[in-house]
């Protein structure tokens, strides 16, 4: 099966992870696409740094969140990392007790937009992020659309437009009207 070749068996990469992570508390499991390292929020940044510097994960494929509402704690943060030298991937999963997490833009500058998107869609705040603005939704939007309680049909989709339109009309003089 060709797809299986892409997934390094856990046994092959486990010693590398163990050497890189050292005494950092973590738990490794296997998912259909490769190893998943589960860590606590306090160790998240140290684990990511150890994986980048010690295990050769030089590229951060994506950072995203899963909302497990109504379970609490609801948010789980996922960092998908790729090593070109070892040709394998690993996913770091971290359950967030609250709605904030440390940034990893200092490790991978490319995580900037991914964390902005995560903040935009889930409202997870990344401490230390250089420029934590909304990415896809407009500035001034009040909601985080990928949260489970956000309805699929959206909330007041044209509120910002109506606000802008009212201000525009109010500024019109009689001549312009």
């Amino acid at each position, binding site marked *: *099966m*060709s*797809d299986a*070749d*892409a997934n390094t068996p856990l046994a092959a990469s486990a010693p590398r992870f163990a050497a890189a992570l050292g005494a950092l508390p973590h738990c490794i499991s296997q*998912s*259909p*696409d*490769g190893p*998943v390292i589960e860590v606590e929020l306090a160790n998240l940044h140290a684990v990511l740094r150890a994986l980048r510097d010690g295990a050769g994960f*030089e*590229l*951060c*494929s*994506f950072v*995203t969140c*899963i*909302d*497990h509402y109504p379970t609490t704690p609801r948010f789980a943060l*996922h960092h*998908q990392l790729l090593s*070109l030298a070892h*040709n394998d*991937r690993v*996913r770091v999963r971290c359950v967030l007790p609250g709605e904030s997490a440390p940034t990893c833009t200092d490790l*991978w*500058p*490319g*995580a*900037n*937009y*991914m964390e902005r*998107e995560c903040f935009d*869609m889930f409202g997870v705040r990344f401490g230390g992020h250089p420029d934590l603005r*909304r*990415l*896809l*939704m*407009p500035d001034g939007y009040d909601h985080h*659309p*990928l949260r489970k309680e*956000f309805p*699929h049909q*959206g909330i007041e989709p044209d509120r910002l437009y109506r606000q802008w339109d009212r201000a525009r009309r109010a500024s019109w003089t009689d001549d312009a009207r």
Partner: protein
Amino acid sequence: MTLTKQVFEYVPAPPEGDDPLHGELLTLNMGPQHPATHGVLRIVVTLDGERIVECDPVVGYLHRGKEKSAESLGWHKFFPHTDRLDYVQPLMNNVGYALALEQLAGIEAPPRAQVIRVLLMELSRIMGHLIYLGTQSIDLGAVTIFFYAFKEREKLYEIVDAYTGHRMNNTYVRIGGLYADVDEKVERLIEEFLVEFPKGLDDMDKLLTRNRIWNDRNRDIGVLSRADALAMSLTGPVLRGSGVEWDLRRAQPYCGYESYDFDVPTGASGDCYDRYLVRMEEMRQSCRIVRQALDRLKSTPGDVLVEDRRFVLPPKGLVHTSMEELIFQFKVVTDLRLPKGQSYRGIESSKGELGFFVASDGSSTPLRCHIRAPGLMNIQALPMLAKGRLFSDMVSLIGSMDFVMGEVDR
């Protein structure tokens, strides 16, 4: 395979003299309706004379909430939405999504379907690169190339139209295989394309590669080092342009890519010109793969859809005659339940690593379907590359980073 620039000796233009407007900053909105931004992208550029002090891409104008839609639609009904991500190569997105679901479900498409998928993906790659070539050249003033590229692209549309019945938004890939097999007409059209396309590509190559204006507008612009490319999460032709030999088709093969013979071109200096050379060579390599896949198609008979009633649609002929199959069809479309778990699959799209991260809680709708869009990462690198460059270089950079807003904004 490292590409060499075997062209005339290149002398860069001398730096401009004292600029009287130096020090006076101007903020300019490029887009969201600027033709050179390839869609609804806005770039807020701060200019000092002709120099770019900083730029800030503003994305989201085409945000349609695809990831949110997936959570209400269900696994199977999300297929048509994947077409609308990178809409210049819909079949590639279909395959990427199908592979992620198949990985989670633990099934695999039959050999014939895999060969056809490779065929479709490579034709899609040529489609994507032709869009790059056409738009990049029309932005830089070479209108002829735009028509040449779109003439070639039209032939690909005809192939896809003959196969799927649609020119765009095909939705022909299913979990566990494909909707239908290719017929002789499609094979004949691809054969014709393989004869004609290299000639057309050579014409474009002759018009551009040694062209003085093309060289001036692309060389030493947007130079991206290997370390920067990796740090910025760049993949695909952009990463290969910077000299990193990394291709998911080679490194982490899917659909049997390990058994095809092709080269992975890499650039030397990582400028816009290198990325151009890489894409041109990739189109030639794609033709090689299409030729091999076409030959393999004749020696690989069989079904194009695996038989697994839990996840895969039953054959259409049976659905019309058998009650059970109709029920299975209904269940797969409306109530497909994938095993509980999470899975990520990345494929080599024409823009870079296109990945689908799917999370299932065992119910009939996804817990999460995250799309790793290569175009978003390419846009993210723009401020770094544009800083301190001339404003006219911005157009070269936008074209050379090659993104499609449907995929970036999702």
